[in-house]
């Protein structure tokens, strides 16, 4: 009797995403226009890629489901909830930097971001987090300004104008 299906939930989800991506690329490319073989249009190459990707993902998906795939066996990757929380906090801090740097300005945004990152990485004492964040922001600001990089002033520009 054959063993049961082996693909981990993570790989099932990834393969479903690959199928959606492949189909989406193929359909989107078709709409761009395939042109003719002797004059390929903008959609020609991505259509080939999308179709190949979809076909390969489908093949791998069914092989995995039927338990004949070479891929990962077993329950798949698992992490404690606390680790996911820490990683989620780090990613949120990084995205927050992107969205806040222009309205808020470099200095306050960088300070907040570093504070969250140091805390997530395991620095416990609040004064240690504050000192390190302030030190890194100050050093970075002056170093990169010296190198010619312009950082947005944000709210500090409003504070400095009379």
């Amino acid at each position, binding site marked *: 009797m054959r063993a049961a299906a082996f693909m981990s939930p993570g790989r099932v989800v990834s393969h479903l995403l690959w199928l959606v991506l492949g189909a989406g690329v193929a359909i989107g490319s078709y709409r761009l226009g395939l042109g003719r073989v002797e004059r390929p249009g*903008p959609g020609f190459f*991505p259509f080939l890629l999308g179709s190949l990707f979809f076909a390969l993902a489908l093949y791998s998906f069914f092989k995995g489901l039927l338990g004949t795939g*070479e891929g*990962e066996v077993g329950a798949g990757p698992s992490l404690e909830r606390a680790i996911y929380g820490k990683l989620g906090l780090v990613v949120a801090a990084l995205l927050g930097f992107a969205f806040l740097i222009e309205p808020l300005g470099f200095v306050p945004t960088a300070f907040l971001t570093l504070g969250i*990152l140091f805390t997530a990485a395991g620095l416990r004492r609040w004064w240690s987090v504050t000192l390190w964040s302030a030190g890194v922001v100050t050093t970075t600001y002056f170093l990169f300004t010296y190198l010619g990089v312009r950082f947005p002033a944000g709210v500090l520009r409003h504070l400095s104008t009379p």
Partner: protein
Amino acid sequence: MTLLYCFAGVFIGTLVGVLPGIGPMGAMAILLPSTYGLPPAASIIMLSGIYYGAMYGGSTTSILVNIPGEAASVITCLDGYQMARAGRAGPALSIAAFGSFIGGTFSIVALQFLVFPLSDAALKFGPPEFFALMCLGMTILTYLARGTAVDAMLMVLLGLILGTVGMDPILGTPRFHFGSTSLLDGVGLVPVAMGLFGISEVLFALEREVVRDILQARLAKSLPTREDWRRSAGPIGRGSLIGFLCGIIPGGGAVMSSFLSYSIEKRLSKRPEEFGCGAIEGVAGPESANNAAAGGAFVPMLALGIPPSPIMGLLLGALMIHGVTPGPLLISQHPEIFWGVIASMYIGNAMLVLLNLPLVGIWVRVLRIPSRLLLPLILFCCLIGAYSANNNPTEVVIMVVFGVVGYVLRKLKYDMAPLIMALVLGPLIEANFRNSLIMSDGRFRIFLQWPISGPVLMFAALLLVSTTFSAYRKNKARMDSSGLSEDA
């Protein structure tokens, strides 16, 4: 000034090589935006310095801490750490440094002999030949990638698909930009590379606290004995040649060269039982090989414009950002870049011997920086790097998204090297493919022409078939054995 950039590159490269966590790929991606204001030659010299500096630096952590600083130094852990435990860390570090210097110097000399005839031959290449060679490169990378062949092929196709975002390289039609002006120039090599290799690496490192037990190197007895040199001479020579050849082959590179050198030295040794217990040959050969591979990798990149590895792909991307296209015309059109890189490699190699031996105490102190300080600093450098390239927050978002994607892909055991190579080469592959069809009025047999594109594509196809067939046989054996155990 060029010497300063060379020194900065090798210093940062050694630092990156010493610190486990961020590899040369991540460091080059993070520092790439800071080179935008530099002349192209200086930019490449600095980035190249990071690459071969990391090869040197990785051996320090392998020998003293038993944790490889980067992938190509994994094999040095086997015997280097055992030598350190036996109180011979000094000779191990010395032989690693001198072996790396000799391997690096050999590859620079050999590079100069090989790049000119290859460039001359490549002047006769047309779009079908370049398309075929790039496909072969992708195929070999698939063959040698970690994980399964199908997963590697999916990553290649994903990279090629990402490469189609932005403007069509032939007609200039916008594709898959979803109305965003930022995406009209494509997803960008820099934020993607920083995300996949910088952010995801740090996210991995944040999962666990690594305890480093650092052995003290007794520098008083740091120089190798005459017997050490006698035993190392052959491995260094062989490792240099093996490394150079592996560096040229697409998908080969420093990792493969170090493993191959170790296997060969063990096979050739009169005392193979000593390997794994502190055989100096196990340090000399692989360390020479990985530095020689770093030099060998420049041959196809400079002569043909085809990067044999993801790191060379990043260098190729850096050159293209500066408006320089590597290939057969590079030497004639931009001799300052070519000769600048060659000269910096000679000087960089000499600098690295000086950096690695006397300053080993400093590198040991760097290793003691706790990860709760180091990891946030690396992430912050990534943020600054991604934002300062174009003062565009969208690129930071792209970097973070690909950081999460890279983290998830690694968890699911996908290899990201094929993805980044395909992203770099994708627009070139598409342009050469479509130009070939335009030239031949739509006839696909243009790709089967002799003496280059036809045989190269056939070889690539054979490699793909053999990869698939060997995967099929492995599966069949696994299914047969599981069937047997259930029947028993």
